């Protein structure tokens, strides 16, 4: 009855950033894999694949009184429909509109039981237009939020900017989300293994990868800024206290916390406890076992707006044994 969960890659990026080019690249490469592609009717045309399904970007507000809890009803229906096919897929690619908030897409994979049983959110891949990103940041929240949600970022069209401008753009991206892997590309050319089948729960790598942690401190923060930060601990975590704290935190601040991820060393448990959340919705499970003699450290990552690092740090420390 239980079958393997199909990995889902969500592609986001501002209008004209290069999503369709990337999509066609994924589909045309000789990888021997079969992908179903879910696009939206407002999206750019010209996708070359016979398994393209039109979605309507139908955002469904949950009736739990929380404005940040939204899912995509059309996505749920399409995934249920795809699962009725005899021929299964190696993966599903979801392309979102250039102006879409990736939140409802990502939350769909945490909320709907049928979707959760059959698929797993593998990664959110955001394509950034190096030439226009800074301008897009001025125009609204969309470009910023797309970067904030990303697990992987394609910093595209690098040939259209000079090295100084590119460094500035990359700096802005890292100030928003320092945990996403950044690949500099031209015409969306990237090794597919850099973006596909990343394993949403395989966070060790993402959490270890933090070379810029000290470069972008809190000194230039101002109100309304989207940023990322992490809290760490060397002592084991009390699971009950953690659940309580995280539950209350997301209930209170869920709208501003776009993504939260973590690997926890639970007191007495032989395996990593892997946690991830989108807005108020969260999911957790046991990950890989700790190795003999390995240092059991915990780390939590938050990406969002108006994050109070000291408060998060204190809250997390109260969850330790």
């Amino acid at each position, binding site marked *: *009855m239980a079958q393997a969960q199909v990995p889902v890659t969500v592609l986001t990026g501002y209008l004209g950033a290069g999503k369709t080019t990337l999509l066609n690249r994924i589909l045309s490469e000789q990888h021997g894999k079969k992908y179903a592609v879910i696009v939206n009717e407002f999206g750019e045309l010209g996708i070359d694949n016979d398994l*393209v*399904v*039109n979605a*309507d970007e*139908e955002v*469904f*507000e*949950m*009736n739990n009184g929380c404005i940040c809890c939204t*899912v995509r*009803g*059309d996505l*749920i*229906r399409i995934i249920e*429909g*795809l*699962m*009725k*096919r*005899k*021929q299964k897929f190696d993966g599903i690619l979801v392309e979102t509109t250039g102006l879409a908030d990736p939140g409802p897409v990502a939350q769909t994979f945490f909320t*709907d*039981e*049928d979707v959760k049983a059959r698929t797993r959110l593998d990664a959110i891949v955001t394509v950034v237009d190096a030439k226009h990103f800074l301008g897009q940041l001025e125009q609204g929240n969309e470009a910023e939020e797309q970067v904030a949600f990303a697990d992987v970022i394609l910093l595209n069209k690098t040939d259209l900017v000079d090295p100084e401008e590119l460094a500035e753009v990359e700096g802005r991206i890292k100030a928003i989300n320092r945990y996403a892997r950044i690949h500099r590309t031209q015409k969306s050319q990237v090794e597919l293994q850099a973006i596909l089948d990343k394993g949403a729960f395989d966070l060790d790598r993402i959490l270890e990868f933090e070379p810029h942690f000290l470069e972008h401190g809190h000194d230039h923060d101002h109100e309304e800024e989207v940023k990322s930060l992490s809290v760490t601990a060397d002592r084991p975590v009390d699971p009950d206290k953690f659940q309580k704290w995280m539950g209350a935190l997301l209930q209170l601040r869920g709208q501003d916390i776009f993504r939260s991820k973590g690997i926890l060393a639970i007191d007495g448990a032989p395996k990593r406890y892997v946690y991830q959340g989108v807005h108020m919705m969260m999911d957790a499970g046991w990950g890989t076992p700790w190795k003999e003699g390995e240092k059991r450290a915990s780390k939590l990552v938050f990406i969002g707006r108006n994050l109070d690092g000291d408060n998060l740090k204190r809250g997390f420390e109260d969850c330790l044994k």
Partner: protein
Amino acid sequence: MKLDLANPAWRQSLPPTRTVATDAPAAACAFSRDGGTVAFAMGDGGVRLLPADPAAPAPDAAPPLHRGAVLCLIGDPTSDGFVSGGDDGRLLRIAADGGAIEIAQQTGKWFEHLAAHRATGAVAASAGKTAYVLKGGELREFGPHQSTVAGVDFSKDGSRIACAHYGGVTVWSIGQVALPPRRFAWAGSHVAVRWSTDGKFIATGTQENDIHVWRMAQATDMRMQGYPAKVKSLSWSADARFLFTSSQPVFTGWPFAGKGPEGKPPLQFGQEGAGLMTVVAAHPATDYVAGGYESGELQLGDIKSKRSVVIKLADSSPVTCLAWSPDGQKLAAGNDRGDLLVIDLRR
């Protein structure tokens, strides 16, 4: 009618059953109007036709009719064939001998929902945001709705169709006189719709683990909560006294006789342990009701005696579809793994 759950024979041996193993998920099943054939909508694009009599020889599978998965299927109310819709955007009319003709094609859309009205011979279908009604060789469009249509059903007299969608239900008059559509609003994503067998109520299942029911006459509504999962299958008893719903571990029927279900608990009976009910189908004439479960188990229940029997035929794969024959003496079921069953309940 020899269906008798009190009969000890039910507990001692299985009724005559046909089991066909395939390797594609079954999305829907239906009996033909004359009850002679049962059809299954398959995930490989095929529509599998089997004689309803389990003892009759089963023909081999025919080549696929749709590209991709067949998503919906009903008995054709105007013939002894069937109507199917697929994720290839095609709506087909299938003759009893398996020959098919295309009724409609919507490129880039999926035909996902179908309903039939036996007395008028009308068929309702939905693809994307639009509903279609096929009647007397004419195909008419209703919509587009504000969002994807997630279920269609006819009123008792066949003069209207109810279309479920995000934010509620829209009822269209399908006669020649174009009346304005009537909206029944309730927030949330409505994923299934069933008009009561007496025509007085419209019930929907929602993405948010509850059901919603509108009273047609007074335009008042009610909401029943507490389901552990979204409710995708609804079935009214033949006399409209109970609305049965999936997504509980036992048969769950809301009482609509008298003043209705407000303030009353649902009728609940049956045998727990098979996970949640995935599909429910009330008998077309009697007080019996059939349920299919996550575990693959089938149960047959009797509203009156609250007895139930387990018909454990296939194992391990969730039941995806259930259908009663028009005379109510046979039951068809399919599951997610591709096991197809036809059970002769006459003993």
